[in-house]
């Protein structure tokens, strides 16, 4: 893979964009470089670092990641859009993922979705609630089928959710 063709050093320094890979984050990335034979292999970890820092992966961040890893922005975009856990637009403070694939579906997952949409005030899938707290989406199998219905609220993996438990769960998230 050649270095970014034609991408100048300042392509991501759009007005008001604060780079992610500085100080401690930069050091963490440098440490990651030692764990893989290529910088390109650090792409998924680097994207996670951006999302952890900023909540989502904006266009200037894509350019920054590309520059830092010696890739083109188009290449990074192709990877970002392949993996569904990376957000390419802002989402609520607490991003809720609900599994509705068949094993959970036959155990009432769709009712859990309805309860969440109602209780959060989001109203529809993918929308952010008016108070900015939540976004709810349906996802595919979360690998906890025996503990239906599992949900992820941010990084919190919560098992055995039922519509009745939803209000209490949501209250834990400011």
């Amino acid at each position, binding site marked *: 893979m*050649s270095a970014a063709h034609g991408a100048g050093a300042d392509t991501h320094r759009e007005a008001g964009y604060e780079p992610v890979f500085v100080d401690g984050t930069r050091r963490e990335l440098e440490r990651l470089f030692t764990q893989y034979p290529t910088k390109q292999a650090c792409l998924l970890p680097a994207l996670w670092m951006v999302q952890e820092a900023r909540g989502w992966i904006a266009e200037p961040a894509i350019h920054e990641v590309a520059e830092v890893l010696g890739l*083109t922005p188009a*290449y990074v*975009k192709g990877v970002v859009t392949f993996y569904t856990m990376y957000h390419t637009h802002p989402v609520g403070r607490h991003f809720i993922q609900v599994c509705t694939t068949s094993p959970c579906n036959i155990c009432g997952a769709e009712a859990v979705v309805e309860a969440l949409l109602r209780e959060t005030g989001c109203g529809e899938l993918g929308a952010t609630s008016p108070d900015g707290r939540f976004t709810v989406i349906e996802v595919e199998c979360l690998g906890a089928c025996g503990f239906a219905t599992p949900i992820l609220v941010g990084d919190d993996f919560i098992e055995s959710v039922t519509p009745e438990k939803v209000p209490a769960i949501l209250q834990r998230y400011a």
Partner: protein
Amino acid sequence: MADELVNVTIDGVPVAVPKGTAIIEAAKQAGVLVPHYCYHPSLPAPAVCRMCLVEVEKSPKLMPACVTTVTEGQVVHVNSDPAKKAREGVLEFLLINHPLDCPICDQSGECELQDYVFQEGRAGTRYSEFAKRYNPVEDFGPDILYVPNRCILCTRCVRFMEDVADTPVLNVSERGDRAFIGIDQSQRLDHPWSGNVVDLCPVGSLLSKDFLHKARAWDLDKTASVCPGCTQGCNITIDTRDDVVVRLRPRPNLEVNRHFMCDYGRMNYRWLNRGDRVEAPLIREGGRHVATDWDSALARLDQAVRGATGSAVILASGRASVESLGLVRRLVERPRVTAAIQVPLGDEAPLAGVPNLALRRERVPNLAGAELLGYGTAWEAAMREVLSAGLVVVLDADLSPADEAALAAAPGVVVVLGTVATDGLRNAQLVLPVTTMAEENGTYVNRDRRIQRYHQARSQPGMARPAWWIAGEVLAGPGPSPDAPATAEEAFALVGAAWPVFAGLSYADLGFTGRVLADGRPAVVGAAR
């Protein structure tokens, strides 16, 4: 060096191919085309389109012919029922979202989806009650549009930019049936070789803005030629419609340009359509140019050449053919001759993934040929010679106002063999209309000393003739003569008689891919294929 050969049978035809050959290539030797989209001989093969699945005896599954290598004794069926059914399936899947755009799509008539669907697709769709996926047209770069709805995701364009151009500015975005080809607007598709993605696209998804809605493929006449843009000598096809050049496309030559040409060469064809041509031979009479017939003009030329004493200067265009440069050089033969060709320069632009392929700095097609014929590149020096020469022949050179002024002030006889009429040459004794390289047959020698033929793609305007014909007629003497070359090949033979490096080669030897010249004898290697 003979590779170990493997024997296989493809649709009943036995062939022996080198070990490691993919079935799809072996099939070509058996005269069998395996339908395919994503495979391309100049790109790494990903086997994603699944169109090339063939039946291989003793294999439980159909095998992709583009990545399956031959094994000894293999029996392959390309057109058996299972293989055809699989292809019919692929075509059906491709057509569910592909719009019925043929009536408005540029690719129509040269579309591989159309071709295979007509050949072996289903007669009707079973997808009628669902909407097709829709995305708006995107502007990818200075010349390239992307129509996502038509894209079959063969990824040839992505692989070309990544692996051949070494500039991964195209990606596949999203997943599943939502996928499309994407770019980042900060790095548009302006690579000097990016136009090739339009050729590579099997359907009308990647389009050239230059060619958009210009002509229907079936209205085009296609002629094998050589790009006149630089010394690389990429093989091209000139597409004309009603005698107007509308498009240049690369023609495969594995030794020169593989399957590619650069954007500079590709876009540089409008000059071939210029209308402001010298229409008839012009002789200077009574202080102005008067049109005349060829017999009179040739007689006057003969007079002028014979009558001019002192040195001679030839100011030639680098686009002139071996035949024309050679015979004009012979025409002016005398003790002191300064022959120069014009070589405009530009930036080099290599295609990283192909060895020895670049848009070259010297933006003329026949520099090597000219040098073999005794022409130099010291243009300024030649222009100074004009001020003291007895005879100046201008062979279609692009003259600056300063050059024209010098010629106007030249003491000797000035003869212009030219394409475009310009005011600044009104002092020339003779202005004789010549053909451009699109209007004649001829040969160029590229920077690797490969001599390649180009063919006439449009008719000669007005009374224009090839420069070799004009010189040849005069050299053969007044009146009809068997020594006057009637064809470019005959002219070429005359050039070979005077310059041994070109001797002993026939046009048939040059074929469509040329021959490399070596040491005064034509080389046998670099075989015309």
